[in-house]
């Protein structure tokens, strides 16, 4: 009859036999020690792979008398049960060993860190009995080394090369004059309408490059700043007031530079008003309150909320709705998209905000990168389908699961 407990018992017996076979190599304990526990088996030391070096992983199979790991193999004499393992380390094989650490029963590995690369380290392990008896010691050694490549990330290199390759290919094709087109994005097509309406009404435009929590390193904020440049060029042309409240000082500095440059480009340097691009606070809801206040006082005719938004999204969009402004939102924050869709006139969903600069400028090279992005997406879909197929087939051929895990899972 199959019984997992029996297998475990056999393993324990095998482990004990393995210990006997190593008996010739081990150093005998002092004769006076009573109640000696059996030593561990398969003690190994190895350099930790794919790391910056300085680390060795020690591992062992527990002593058959390990009270935590294999209770059923407990010795007749309870004093011989293992209560701990002692690890020792030395720089030279015959050098002085000093105790590294004492770990509890049930432990089967220990990472020794903070070592020097290229130096050989020698280790010993000894089981400590409940009555203090010490088992014979086992030895192992290893040389820690730093890796030049993290092999666990090979699949990431492949993905990077694939995606970057596809993008570059289409950028090069666009440079060489192949015509590219992009589908209509309603939210971006409405930018001119919104600015035109604000100009007619003689009211300002409010542009938020992010919500109350974002930083300049956020790629959505950068995408939003690119769109701000286009909006600013138009507002400068129409001489419409543009308000840009920021929650990050660096975003503010960047937004000022961008708006200034856009005004120059539109040949309206006098349209640039630095005081309209200001820092409010990086406190989420204080920022929200500040922007809501601006909406109610200045009554902008058009509001742009493009970038990273959190819980403030709906508070801002509903206030904007109440003031009757035309609202264009855009974010890759999935949980806020429904709120923007409900309360704004147009919403750019996810990747559309990254496509905006290409869409608005119609520059062939940028359009090429968008086309490449679509093909990269097709490749991602292909990989997903391949993964599903592999895992489904793995029900029949289990080795396919290992292959899929090796190449398709992040490490």
């Amino acid at each position, binding site marked *: 009859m199959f019984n997992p407990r029996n297998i475990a018992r056999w393993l324990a017996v095998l482990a004990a036999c393995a210990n006997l076979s190593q008996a010739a190599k081990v150093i005998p304990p002092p004769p006076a020690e009573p109640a000696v526990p059996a030593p561990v088996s398969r003690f190994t030391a190895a350099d930790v792979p794919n790391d910056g070096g300085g680390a060795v992983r020690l591992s062992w199979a527990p002593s058959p008398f390990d009270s935590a790991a294999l209770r059923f193999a407990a010795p007749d004499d309870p004093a011989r049960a293992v209560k701990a393992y002692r690890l020792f380390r030395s720089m030279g094989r015959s050098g002085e060993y000093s105790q590294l650490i004492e770990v509890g029963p049930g432990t089967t590995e220990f990472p020794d860190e903070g070592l020097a690369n290229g130096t050989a380290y020698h280790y010993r392990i000894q089981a400590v009995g409940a009555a203090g008896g010490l088992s014979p010691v086992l030895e192992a050694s290893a040389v820690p080394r730093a890796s030049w490549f993290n092999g666990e990330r090979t699949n990431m290199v492949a993905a990077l090369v694939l995606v970057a390759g596809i993008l570059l290919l289409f950028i090069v094709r666009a440079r060489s004059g192949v015509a590219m087109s992009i589908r209509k994005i309603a939210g971006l097509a409405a930018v001119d309408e919104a600015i035109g309406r604000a100009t007619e009404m003689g009211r300002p435009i409010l542009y938020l490059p992010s919500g109350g*929590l*974002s930083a300049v390193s956020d790629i959505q904020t950068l995408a939003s700043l690119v769109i701000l440049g286009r909006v600013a060029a138009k507002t400068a042309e129409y001489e419409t007031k543009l308000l840009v409240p920021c929650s990050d000082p660096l975003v503010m500095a960047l937004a000022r530079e961008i708006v200034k440059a856009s005004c120059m480009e539109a040949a309206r340097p006098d349209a640039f008003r630095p005081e309209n691009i200001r820092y409010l606070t990086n*406190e*989420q*809801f204080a920022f929200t309150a500040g922007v809501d206040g601006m909406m109610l006082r200045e009554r902008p005719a058009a509001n742009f909320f493009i970038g*990273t938004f*959190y*819980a403030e999204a709906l508070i801002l969009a509903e206030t904007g709705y*109440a003031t*009757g402004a035309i609202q264009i939102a855009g974010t890759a924050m*999935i*949980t806020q998209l429904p709120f923007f869709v409900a309360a704004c006139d147009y919403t750019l969903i996810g990747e559309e905000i990254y496509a905006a600069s290409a869409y608005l400028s119609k520059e062939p090279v940028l359009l090429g990168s968008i086309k490449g992005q679509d093909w990269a997406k097709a490749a991602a879909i292909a990989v997903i389908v391949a993964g599903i197929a592999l895992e489904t087939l793995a029900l029949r051929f289990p080795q396919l699961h290992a292959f899929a895990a090796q190449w398709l899972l*992040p490490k």
Partner: protein
Amino acid sequence: MKGFFVGMMRIDRRWIFLAMALVVAGSLLSDIAFPRLEISPDVRRAYDLIDGLPSGSTVLFSWDYDPGSQPELYPLSAAMLRHALRRDLRIVMMGHWVTGVPLIEKQIAEVVRREFPDKRYGSDYVNLGYKSGQNVLVITMAKSIRDAFPADYYQTPLDSLPLMARCRTLRDARAVVSFSAGDPGLIMWIQFAWQRFHIPVTGGCTAVSAPEFSAYLQSGQLHGLMGGMRGAAEYETLVGVRGSASVGMTAQSLAHALIVVFILIGNVAYFAAGRGKEER
């Protein structure tokens, strides 16, 4: 009659606000309670992770929210903190949001010192406070917590705190628990603590952001989650405490019901007034 429905569709939203305020305040002041609260698998997983750690092991709690989301996230962090202390875990506390750090102090005063007076600062729990840097900070902590935080929140050098002598790097923590209102928060911890260093990550988030985490829960990158007040109430049920989240469940139930009633009214008005005449 038609005029009434058209009026209903253009109803001043302040009436809706008033109804909402009355329902929420009324249910908080009354003592109605709905009996059954199913424990969702996500909350169960979070509970099991904490419950399964050997007593004496170290966990890192990160308060990644500010006073804005306090009403929702405070009960949730209190429930988990209580559980961890009962399980005799050692807790390293920190926060990625500068305005949220006093909330750690508040929780120490209201949960740790009041309910667990025998827990000692320095050996049972440590408050590291705030440091900027977000993911860079996490990577630094994985190398050495001392490099990231030379001293704790009260400017005590880490070397003089016995708990920190045992917890030298982030890898010494058996789990990371983040209470997250946005970024930096749970997603950052998943990306760095779990993806890079394989430290199990769990925690809680606001109800609004909970759907975002379903992908991470399904892939096993997130070890359970408490979503908003309901998640906290479930956790309170598991821990056996009727805290503020359980009390708030009635208010939330009735608020949801009110919104559904409004949706129904809106649709009745929409069809009665003749479709498409509701443009603002």
